[in-house]
């Protein structure tokens, strides 16, 4: 009963998110993200139809649709990366390259996995593939979050909300998927039951942060940073290394 209520709440939140996105014109700015939300909403409705009318096929439909949504959720990562690093071309290029390399490796691995598991049922293969893709996605998001924190990027309310929501959802999912494959049935059941709650929290975060279009965080550019950067990097290196030497020199007895 509670699960059904949560299901309906999630559908309602996704619809609200889409409607607000259209009204606030955020759909144009975050096309990939809203594309993902549309995909999720369609999947939820299909699952609900199968659950109510053909419950025997629900499990296989669930795993295929789960795989589709995981692949679609990579679009959110690309969206976050593109929007957040637009003002910082120095970071955008190497990171986009890295993202594509990792994505290519994952897809190749997934293809190899498909060939290797020919005898196994397709829903099982879909589940395993979904798990691996989720782990890679988690690692990618972790790298991005670390980078945002390290360089103190100002994301603004809209993009910040998308990123934080994704962190909640993917983080909880990675932990859940890991425990699903372990023999700790009671704990994994508890985590699986907690997952819809986490998803509705994620949707609430997205709804609040994307309710209206917020201006991108203003970044006050330093005067002529390009010319100074090479000098500044050298200076930081020399200063930090010199400080270490000085510290040891003070304590060293002659």
């Amino acid at each position, binding site marked *: 009963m509670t699960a059904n209520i949560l299901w309906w709440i999630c559908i309602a939140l996704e619809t609200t998110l889409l409607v607000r996105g259209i009204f606030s014109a955020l759909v144009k700015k975050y096309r990939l993200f809203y594309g993902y939300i549309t995909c999720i909403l369609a999947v939820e409705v299909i699952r609900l139809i199968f659950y109510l009318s053909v419950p025997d096929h629900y499990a296989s439909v669930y795993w295929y649709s789960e795989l589709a949504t995981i692949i679609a959720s990579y679009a959110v990562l690309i969206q976050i990366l593109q929007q957040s690093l637009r003002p910082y071309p120095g970071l955008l290029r190497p990171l986009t390259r890295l993202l594509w390399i990792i994505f290519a490796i994952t897809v190749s691995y997934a293809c190899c996995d498909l060939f290797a598991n020919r005898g196994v049922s397709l829903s099982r293969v879909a589940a395993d593939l979904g798990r691996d893709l989720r782990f890679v996605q*988690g690692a990618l998001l972790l790298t991005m979050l670390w980078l945002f*924190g390290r360089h103190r990027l100002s994301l603004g309310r809209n993009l910040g909300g998308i990123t934080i929501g994704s962190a909640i959802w993917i983080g909880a999912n990675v932990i859940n998927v890991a425990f699903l494959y372990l023999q700790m049935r009671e704990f994994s059941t508890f985590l699986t039951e907690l997952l819809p709650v986490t998803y509705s929290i994620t949707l609430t975060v997205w709804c609040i942060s994307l309710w209206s279009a917020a201006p991108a965080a203003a970044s006050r550019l330093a005067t002529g940073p390009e010319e100074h950067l090479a000098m500044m990097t050298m200076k930081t290196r020399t200063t930090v290394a010199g400080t270490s030497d000085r510290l040891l020199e003070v304590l060293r007895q002659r």
Partner: protein
Amino acid sequence: MTFVALLSIVLLGTLILVLGTRLAAQMIETGRAKSATIEDYLRAERVLDSVVMEAETMKRILSHDDARFIAEQGTCEAQKLFESERKRLALRWVRRMQKQVSELMKLHLMLARYTSKPMPKLELDVSAKCLTFKLISTVVLAIIWLVGPFRAASVVTYTLNSAAYFCGIFRLRHVDVQGSRPASEPGSR
């Protein structure tokens, strides 16, 4: 799935949640804080310079001459007071240095994001040097806190001398190996 794999995946999920929370906190903080400029960086560098310039004074403060004088002339209480004062000074100096280096590094990273010509090798080197400094200063802090500034000086000297000794030995070994390599070995020409 092995236990180690499971542990690393759970750690990955937990780290995502932690960094997500940190990002939220950072967003609230960014709303209040201003962005960095090259002037802020230069100011931070000047402050760090002034802290490092105190090195000579610190050397004098931590010198064994004063400690020896107090041990010979002063009472036990005076000696304790002297040691605790010097320990407090040494700890404060190292902490100030750590704080200033972190501040400088923070400003450096804030400014580095604006460039369209990234220098990954140099940036990596700067990060490695900063990490080394953090490690050294934390170890020094721990030693001063545990054994006091005067004995810490002995420990540091001993460690540095040992490191220099081993480096010397390894360098000699390397020269020996290079010298005794047979001529037929590939790449020895």
